[in-house]
């Protein structure tokens, strides 16, 4: 099980800024280990962010994204106490969802 994401969502003047730090190895599949064997690819492929139950961001990730990706975005609307949930799915089918309240 992957470690939890760190999410901060702050509403200000009708705009909510969300910042997410994901914990993921984001292995490209091109690196070799010390014995020369390829390290299998393992990276996030899809990411979805929901405000309450409405999708506000949908993104496709790939192997060029760094280890432990950091993502920041804003959406219109959102108020204190609303829920923001972020979900990722990786190429091994693993998934993780974390949720915070807007502050």
């Amino acid at each position, binding site marked *: 099980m992957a*470690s939890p994401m*760190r999410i*901060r969502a*702050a509403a200000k003047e009708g705009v909510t800024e969300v*910042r997410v*730090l994901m914990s993921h190895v984001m292995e490209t599949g091109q690196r070799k280990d010390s014995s020369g064997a390829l390290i299998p690819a393992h990276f996030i492929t899809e990411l979805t962010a929901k405000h309450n139950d409405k999708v506000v961001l949908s993104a496709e990730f790939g192997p060029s994204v760094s*280890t*432990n990706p*950091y993502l920041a975005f804003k959406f219109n609307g959102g108020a204190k106490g609303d829920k923001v949930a972020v979900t990722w799915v990786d190429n091994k089918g693993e998934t993780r969802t974390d949720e915070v309240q807007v502050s």
Partner: protein
Amino acid sequence: MSRFSKTLIALLVAGATGLAAGTAGASEGYPGIGRAATEAEVKAWDIDVRPDFVGLPKGRGNVDDGMELWETHCASCHGVFGESNEVFTPIVGGTTAQDIETGRVAALVTGDSPQRTTLMKVPTVSTLFDYIQRAMPWTAPKSLTADEVYAILAYLLNLGEIVPADFELSDENIREVQERMPNRNGMTTDHGMWPGAAAAKGGLGNGGKPDVKNAACMKDCKKEVEIVSALPDYAQDAHGNLAEQNRPVGQTRGKPTGAPAEEAAPEAKAGGAAALALANEKGCMACHGVANRIVGPGYNEIAEKYRGQTDAASGLIDKVKTGGQGVWGAVPMPPQGHVTDDEIKQLVQWILEGAQAQ
């Protein structure tokens, strides 16, 4: 012991003496100069927090408050999660639950982490407290209260997954946190940079023993050391002729280096141009200029040096033929076996007559 630690100790001793004199109420050593620091002044300066938590102020702060403070004071430079690499190196990252168990950050050894973060390196939580309290925020150091420092530190430790999200850090439980620092066993004192006595005698380090093992060589010592601004001979040509690699204007011309040069063998007066051509052909001009020094002396310099010496020619012919060193500096003139005696004679005469090309 290194000079550095001697100096440090000297300063410490001086400081301690100063304080002692200060609390006694007068600067006895230097009458009429300054005054002793008052106890309150000393207290105001004395804010350090040591690894054994001497100097730690009382207080408490929790992760949630720390997060608010972090976003107000710290996040603009360090990133919301302490992850930012833009202004400073990241504070958080690179540590694992395993590291917290072992007390030694594995990524420091394996190189798995792309960059060393603060939490990967720092062995003592007191150092973090001290630094935040002393130096942060960058624009307003020492503006945080003790409780705020506790809160910010709690937030950082939570980001590093060293403490849980509902943790409240205080002067009472900070020792327990020290036992969970990921790199707490990563610090060694067994080297000469630590001042004072060896650890066995109650000091910190190894008593100043250097960590290099070379024995002093006391044979064939130079009697005199001459300090010069010059390259050793073997390094002269390491990068080619420096003079050729600098533009010929401006102050920096580059020292003429390069392979040892042949002394230019000039021709007889009969044909200056012929002599010059011969010098070119035999490679003399690679190192000697007609009117300038390249590696070896210029022909004009040679002519000047031997002006009026009737026996100069034979000596120089020998020099060109068998090589020489020392007259014009350390760069040797190699023997010129490929030039015939007659040609050498021609060149030397040409040089001594002023190396005229016409």
